[in-house]
């Protein structure tokens, strides 16, 4: 119970900070919309081609916008010295990890909730379906979980913001493939059972990544 209270306190702190500045969500959102436009122009997406490309463009957009928010989230801790305070506080290291990860997931989720109707309109596909929402949630959990761990590593390097995508994207490839395929299957009129293999792979990715990140996060933040 105590553990949940500690996690909750960290999440609440991040949400309060975000409500004051609104810098993370707004940056991710504006970037995501820009990326969506860039993809449309670059690939000349219209009609049937836009529909076919929508799942891939959606996930590429979420992936790139995600790196932006993740690196900001941990950089903010670092700059304000907040992470030192957290380390001094009598809380479990894994509580800090879950607090940060859940906070990041909430921010990415907010961005996705705005993005999905926009995508549906621009690409003329219906993404606002329970199946797609489930796949979005599963993909985002895995991506955000490994992203939070790697962002904590990246902020302590010389290259900082540049380092996170280099570290994160190759490790996110399995989740990205599974999420795109599952979303595409659902957009093509399949049911959740039709894309069961992909969603199972996403669940496996989430479980493995969350477990490993939880176990190793303590080693990243210790000084």
């Amino acid at each position, binding site marked *: 119970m105590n553990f949940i209270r500690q996690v909750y306190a960290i999440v609440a702190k991040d949400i309060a900070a975000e409500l004051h500045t609104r810098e993370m969500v707004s940056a991710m959102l504006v970037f995501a919309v820009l990326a969506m436009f860039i993809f449309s122009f670059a690939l000349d997406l219209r009609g049937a081609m836009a529909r076919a490309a929508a799942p891939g463009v959606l996930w590429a957009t979420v992936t790139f916008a995600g790196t932006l928010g993740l690196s900001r989230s941990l950089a903010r801790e670092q700059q304000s010295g907040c992470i030192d305070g957290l380390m001094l506080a009598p809380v479990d290291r894994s509580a800090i990890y879950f607090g940060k990860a859940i906070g990041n997931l909430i921010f990415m989720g907010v961005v996705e909730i705005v993005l999905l109707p926009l995508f549906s309109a621009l690409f003329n596909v219906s993404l606002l379906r329970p199946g797609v929402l489930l796949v979005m949630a599963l993909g985002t959990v895995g991506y955000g979980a490994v992203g939070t761990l790697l962002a904590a*590593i990246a902020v302590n390097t010389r*290259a900082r913001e540049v380092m996170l995508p280099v570290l994160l994207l190759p*490790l996110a490839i*399995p989740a990205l*493939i599974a999420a795109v*395929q599952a979303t595409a299957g659902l957009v093509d009129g399949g049911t959740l059972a039709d894309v069961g293999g992909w969603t199972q*792979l996403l669940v*496996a990715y989430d479980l493995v990544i969350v477990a490993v990140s939880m176990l*190793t996060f303590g080693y990243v933040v210790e000084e």
Partner: protein
Amino acid sequence: MRKPGPDWLGIILAGLSAVAVLAALGMVFLYAPREVTMGDVQRIFYFHVACAWVGFFAFFVTFVAGIGYLARGERRWDILALSSVEIGLTFITMAVVTGSLWARPVWGAYWTWEPRLTISAVQLLIYVAYGMLRTAIESPERKARFAAVYGIVAFVTVPLSWFAIRWWRTIHPDILTGGEGMAMTPRMVQTLLTSIAAFTLLYVTLLRQRVRLERAADALARLRLRAENEKGI
């Protein structure tokens, strides 16, 4: 200070590797039969598979060394991890290059997103990132710690990547590669196993030398520090 004698084990290992690699070469070109459909081009396969195997094995060693470092915090585990990554990168690069060279005459394109080739390329990217991470951190202790964590997280994604890439290829059947696999005769299997054994031996030899080099660099750094301190007094 004791003057180090000749490194007999290193010399023996190097000699054995040389003999094994030459034997593998001989078997690849003289002993293994000519493949019926692909012809002599197929002979690159024996080196290609051996390189890929050494690459993945080397990254596995880095994974284990990462766990060792986090558990014990000893410098030698970090030396093992970084040495193994460097050698693994060399071999996985060779695997990707030989794979494309093989694909070109057989399938008509350098790159076909064949699952095994694709996952090798993904591993190449991951461990290039590992190398960049190491160079971007000043403090040796923090460098070792972060690298250990990344080496562990990176390796656990290998099976997930494998399933994802494999399924991704099966739902988009590749007309170029068509039917999977080729029939291997006993001579081919023997040649392949010899080649894998030879490259593994070469890996052990190189790993040992790389570890020694890093230890020597550490010893030199310590001596420099001592010399500077004595000058200061």
